[in-house]
């Protein structure tokens, strides 16, 4: 068969596979079975990805702090996650005596379930979305909001001041940054004119002079993406926003009192949240599964999607290896006094962009406004010595 058709088959391989498998069933059951298969695929793929990521993260952090990461189990220690899994399964599941049994038990389940729900609307490749929902974006963030309650349940139920503090911090942080997350998404929705993720991707999956129409390549898109990245980092409690589990202050935050499999579930839940939020960012700003160059379209779409997701995961790890942790008040001020205003400004600029319509003026105008805002902000910061070059005093 010709190369193109081969690559198109390769592109659709999972879809074809599903259809083939479903083909064995009576027609009445096929749709349901298809959904079940897709769900199974998701439920298998992402935990696998999670296992890989843990290794990569530990090794990568090791490199950044120039030490070897895990390198005992298997070749280069790549079977480390297997060992960890076995350990967490076989460990004793400790529940504090004064803990609130039911809630303590439910918390991790709620977390994992809601996080998994988020994947339902992410298009992971051409025609590779579980449910093409009309209000997909809304659904995604609704699920994201639902995780907070689980965090609270965990923190409160285990009757431990560290846990409670961690949970409170986590929730405060999540709520504050969720606003930013949503607002930075709104600008994309405004331009794409749809809440359905496949439609948003289609809006970006066009090329002029071989270059893609990804939203990150527009002034407002870039601004929104930056804000989204910040908010996403905070939303997933990653460094530098990892106060909720700042081990130096509160032992391990809201899952201090969890051990064994439940702890593993929390761990899983957090990484899944990272995946899903990176996938969302990819879909909103980086054109989802579309290729970065028209010339590269032959490469299967799902490779692009997962490649982009892993790229952003790498950035997460990189930041963790690089940035120091913020203080709580700094965190809040940052959220409400810097990120939110700029997101709003970005929204206004997006509206202006939409209003100006096609043509060069909108590029000039929007770029000017945003650049001016950022520059002025920096100047103001320098002017009032809030931010700007720090002066260090070394012990002599």
């Amino acid at each position, binding site marked *: 068969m010709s190369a193109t058709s081969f690559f198109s088959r390769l592109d659709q391989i999972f879809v074809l596979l599903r259809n083939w498998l479903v083909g064995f069933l009576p027609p009445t059951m096929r749709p349901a079975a298809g959904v079940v298969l897709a769900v199974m695929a998701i439920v298998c793929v992402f935990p696998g990805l999670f296992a890989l990521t843990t290794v990569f993260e530990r090794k990568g952090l090791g490199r950044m702090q120039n030490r070897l990461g895990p390198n005992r189990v298997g070749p280069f220690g790549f079977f480390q996650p297997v060992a960890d899994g076995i350990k967490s399964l076989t460990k004793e599941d400790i529940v504090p005596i004064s803990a609130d049994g039911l809630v303590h038990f439910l918390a991790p389940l709620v977390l994992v379930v809601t996080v998994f729900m988020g994947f339902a609307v992410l298009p992971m490749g051409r025609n590779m979305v579980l449910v093409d929902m009309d209000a997909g974006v809304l659904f995604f963030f609704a699920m994201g909001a639902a995780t907070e309650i689980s965090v609270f349940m965990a923190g409160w139920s285990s009757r431990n001041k560290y846990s409670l503090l961690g949970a409170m911090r986590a929730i405060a942080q999540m709520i504050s940054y969720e606003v930013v997350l949503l607002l930075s998404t709104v600008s994309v929705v405004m331009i794409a004119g749809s809440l359905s993720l496949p439609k948003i991707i289609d809006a970006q999956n066009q090329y002029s002079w071989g270059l893609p129409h990804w939203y990150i390549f527009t002034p407002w898109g870039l601004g929104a993406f930056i804000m989204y990245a910040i908010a996403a980092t905070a939303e997933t409690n990653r460094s530098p926003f990892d106060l909720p589990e700042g081990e130096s202050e509160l032992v391990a935050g809201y899952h201090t009192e969890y051990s064994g499999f439940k702890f593993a579930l929390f761990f899983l839940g957090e990484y899944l949240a990272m995946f899903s939020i990176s996938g969302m960012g990819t879909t909103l700003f980086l054109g989802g599964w579309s290729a970065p160059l028209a010339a590269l379209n032959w490469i299967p779409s799902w490779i692009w999607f997962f490649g982009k997701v892993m790229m952003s995961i790498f950035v997460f790890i990189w930041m963790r290896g690089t940035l120091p942790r913020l203080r709580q008040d700094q965190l809040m001020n940052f959220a409400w006094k810097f990120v939110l205003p700029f997101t709003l400004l970005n929204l206004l600029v997006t509206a202006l962009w*939409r*209003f100006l*319509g096609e*043509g060069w*003026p909108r590029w000039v105008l929007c770029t000017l406004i945003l650049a001016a805002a950022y520059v002025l902000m920096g100047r103001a910061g320098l002017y009032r010595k809030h931010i700007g070059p720090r002066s260090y005093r070394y012990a002599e």
Partner: protein
Amino acid sequence: MMQEAVAFTPGGARSMIAQYLWLIPALPIIASGVIAVLRQSRRKLAAGLAITSLSVSLLLSFIAFVRVVGHWAGGSVAREIFNVTWFSVGSAPVDLGWVLDPLAAIMLLMVSFVGLLIFIYSVGYMAHDENFTRFFCFLSLFAGAMLGVVISNSILLLFMCWELVGLTSYLLIGFWYQKPSAAAAAKKAFITTRVGDIFFFLGIVWLFSQTGTLLFYNYGVGSLEGLNLANLLTARGGLGLSAAGAIGLLIFAGAVGKSGQLPLHVWLPDAMEGPTPVSALIHAATMVAAGVFLIARVYPLMSIGAGAAGTTSALTVVTWVGSATAVFAALIAVAQNDIKRILAYSTVSQLGYMMAGLGLGGVAVGMFHLITHAFFKALLFLGAGSVIHGCHEEQDIRRMGGLRADMPLTFATYGVGMLALCGFPIVFSGFWSKDAILEAAQHWSLSKVPFYLLVFGAVLTAFYMTRQVSYVFFGYWRGRGTAHESPRVMTMPLAVLAFFAIALGAIGTPGWPWFRAFLENQPATAAFYVLIEPEFLALLGTSTLIVALGIGLGLWLYGNKSPKPETPDILEQSAPWLWIPLRDKLYVDEFYRVTFIAFYAWWARVADWFDRRIWGGIVSAVALIFGLWAKLNRALDMYWVDGSFDKTCEELSNGGGLLARVQSGLVQNYLRILAAAVVALAAILLWSSRP
């Protein structure tokens, strides 16, 4: 919204400039916003921003103008519009939009050009003011709003900008608010124009309710075109007017307020309390002309249904008001001694000319005078400013004199402006524009009175300008200290304006009526033979006569003899019965004071009296009654003390206690009672409404 608006405009061939026309007003407004947040010390930056933004606007306006001329020369319809639905309440869309047609293009060019010159001038004039940045903030806000008035295609947008213009005028008149007179003048201007704007707004509402659209032009369904206009003509407007006429008159009331026509002219002279550039820009060249422009914009409304006489009642009113104002203000101007006040009254009278021109000869005639007047009156004001500047803030013309030696450049340019204002034949633009008005008046079918009025006004104009010039520039110096010529940044604009005060005449001569043709969208044909036809020559003769008469009279009375400032004016010596009332501005202010203002004061007093006497009286009466009642009770107690009475008291207090228990302050009790009541009510309703 925007995209849709574009989508359903037929024949989407809209030029870039028409689409981005809104940038012209937007730029100065943005600039003013930026200037507003600057620190006071950033003078250069402020001025730079204002001037840059306005010059960009000027550039864009020029592009737009060229575009329109191209359309017109190409013979296609020279009107491009761009409408946006702002939002819609229920089913009624609230539309905004802008229009680019000859009228708008001309005005854009004039406003941004004169504005730019005056900006530059003010850099010099305001150099020593500590509120420099604030001044430029207001000034460029004004420029933006004025340009907005010019381009707006939606009467709502026009009204917004109109009010914004009024606001900036208020702010700028009261710029030196430390001076109580300035503050008072600002308030007077604001309130007086409000009176007109109320009627204007009524007109807008009526227009909207009649046509259901706020847009002037919208491809045949706007309020000034097609079916809507015809319906307006047929609809009844009361007082034997058509709705069109009535609405037109209401809008005209707004114009009367803004451009100081007869009943509401009182604020304009006082507005001279503001800085001179402001007087030049706002109260001579642009804002006061906005009224005239407004009438020109809604001219279809005024002129539709013109009878055999070739005019409508609305236009007749406009004519009469205009010509009356022209003479009235000119009369007052004769007897003023403040250099800026004279110019202010002359502005009022010239605005009267424009109105009369609109009423008599249509858009072209009025607009032509508007444009020329904008240039030479701005020139005169800036010249006056330079004179004041040179004479150390002296404004009384009796304390000047002989300045032609001290300030030659100012003198030369001022002379040009003066001659243009007098309508000195052939050379000066003022002649051609005023001539057109007089000609139109001469051919007016209804009555010849306006013609005579306007002619008389012209004589007076020449007269008082001669008086002023001979007071200021001739004779010998009577002020304090010595006068000095103003800096270059101030005189350069004067020179430019002077050039235009002469050159602009060329585009409107009867020989080559380019302006009229452009505005009325017909091909321009040069017909120089008209210039030697007896009719024109006769007119030329008369106007020459008029000007000569005025100037001669002026020179005879005031020429080159410079009386002491203390000695009364020559006219005052010879004809005090004429002079005194004129000097006191024909007592209009006094009249208002004893009528309207007095009425309001009286009304306030009445209300106050009501409060004190009637209501207060009632209250105290009630109190008194109760007092009596109490006394009565006490008497009863005294005579009627027995157990039954105590018992009643007990019962009462118990009942009170019972009732008080309900008011437990427990929220849930209230909620409970509420819920129970709701249940009962619902049950009753359902039961009663059961099938």
